[in-house]
């Protein structure tokens, strides 16, 4: 029973989230705009908030850690993800690379679909081989970083204190990621102690994949509608 409840709660959160639109909120935006010079703590907070309320990043991370049991593996994969998104976050904002946020967010949606399909053993079963999971996490991490960069760029950051503010934002993203992952891993380990985990693992990844498809459809439509 508990698993069904957990599943439906998870679903409810994931389905409710797109309506909230995954951007730095208007109020935060006007704060960022009025900021001139370094504002370490506020940017750490904004980065952490962005990650904790960023269902697309979270959905991908759930997929990544879904079948990771050892802390060592979790740390390894999450570090790869972190390296990936930090590179493109910093390079994107500092280098002034303006990626189309709809395309980037659609690719982030694709990363969720990819990971769910991988968790379902789709690659092994259908294609007879599984692409290197570490490289996949790193590459998708790069796209997630571009997504973070486009969100920050929409805010028209002041040049003054830019580097300190981006580093703070990035640091906040990592804090938010650790907070969110702790909750996810705790829930998963609790769930794994029950036999139902294995009964519902496949169904859960199907649900995760559906979420990824929704994100993709949402962003692709946005690309053509905007």
């Amino acid at each position, binding site marked *: 029973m508990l698993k069904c409840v957990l599943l439906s709660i998870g679903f409810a959160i994931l*389905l409710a989230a*797109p*309506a909230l*639109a995954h951007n730095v909120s*208007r*109020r935060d*935006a*006007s*704060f*960022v*705009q*009025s900021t*001139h010079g370094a504002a370490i703590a506020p940017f750490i907070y904004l980065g952490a908030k962005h990650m904790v309320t960023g269902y697309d990043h979270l959905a991908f991370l759930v997929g990544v850690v879904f*079948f*990771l*049991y050892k802390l060592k593996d979790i740390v390894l994969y999450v570090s790869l993800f972190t390296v990936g998104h930090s590179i493109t976050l910093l390079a994107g904002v500092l280098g002034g690379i*303006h*990626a*189309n*946020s*709809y395309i980037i967010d659609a690719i982030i949606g694709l990363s969720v*679909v990819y990971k*769910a*399909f*991988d*968790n*379902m*053993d*789709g690659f092994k*079963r*259908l294609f007879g081989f*599984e692409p290197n*999971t570490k490289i996949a996490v790193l590459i998708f991490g790069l796209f997630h970083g571009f997504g973070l960069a486009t969100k920050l*760029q*929409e*805010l*028209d950051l*002041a040049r*003054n204190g830019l580097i300190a503010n981006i580093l703070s934002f990035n640091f906040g993203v990592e804090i938010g990621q650790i907070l969110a992952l702790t909750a996810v891993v705790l829930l998963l380990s609790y769930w794994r102690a029950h036999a139902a*985990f*294995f009964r519902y*693992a*496949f169904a859960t*990844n*199907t*649900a995760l*994949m*559906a*979420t*990824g*498809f*929704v994100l*993709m*459809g*949402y962003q692709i*439509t*946005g*690309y053509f*509608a*905007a």
Partner: protein
Amino acid sequence: MTASANVPETRSTGAILKATAVALLVAVVILFAAVLPAEYGIDPLRTGKLLGLTGISKAAEPAPAAGRPVPVAAGVFTAQPGTYKVDSEDLALGPGEGVEIKYHMKKGASMLYAWKASGKVQFEFHGEPDQKPNKDYYESYELDNKLGRENSFGSFTAPTTGIHGWFWENKSKSEVMIHLTTAGFYDSAKMYSDSPAGEPLTIEDAK
């Protein structure tokens, strides 16, 4: 992902394909029934209207154009961290004299202004960013160095952090009185008449 000891029961190729198809179908239904009506007002199934979801997209601000950064301050209001200041100055300009009053404002801060003169004065409304490429750099907002004017009223949003204000010059043969009032989110004011460094003016918090 390689699952070690507790391997969930392996699924057949058919089951994986079926699950993928189910995921896609569920996603398409959610998209068309809820997300697209709520986010973009695209409502082919009329479910958005039925559930009242299309109101969300109408209420939302227009989606930013793809890929281009949008200046957020172009909204209806811009919140400021503190209260605004008020200032009023009376200036007497003899024939051939000039004077300047400038307010220090952060980028995006705004003020209301009004000045009236007893005769025509030439003026330039301009600003100097704190960080400027060279010593003499300034940005001109409004200039009348020909016929001159007796007044000017308006609202102003600082395009850069720096000092923003007016230079007036009396080119007539008689003395001109100028009365300036401002209210805005500036933090200091200076008058420049004789010394290039300027003299600080006393400004007050809004009551």
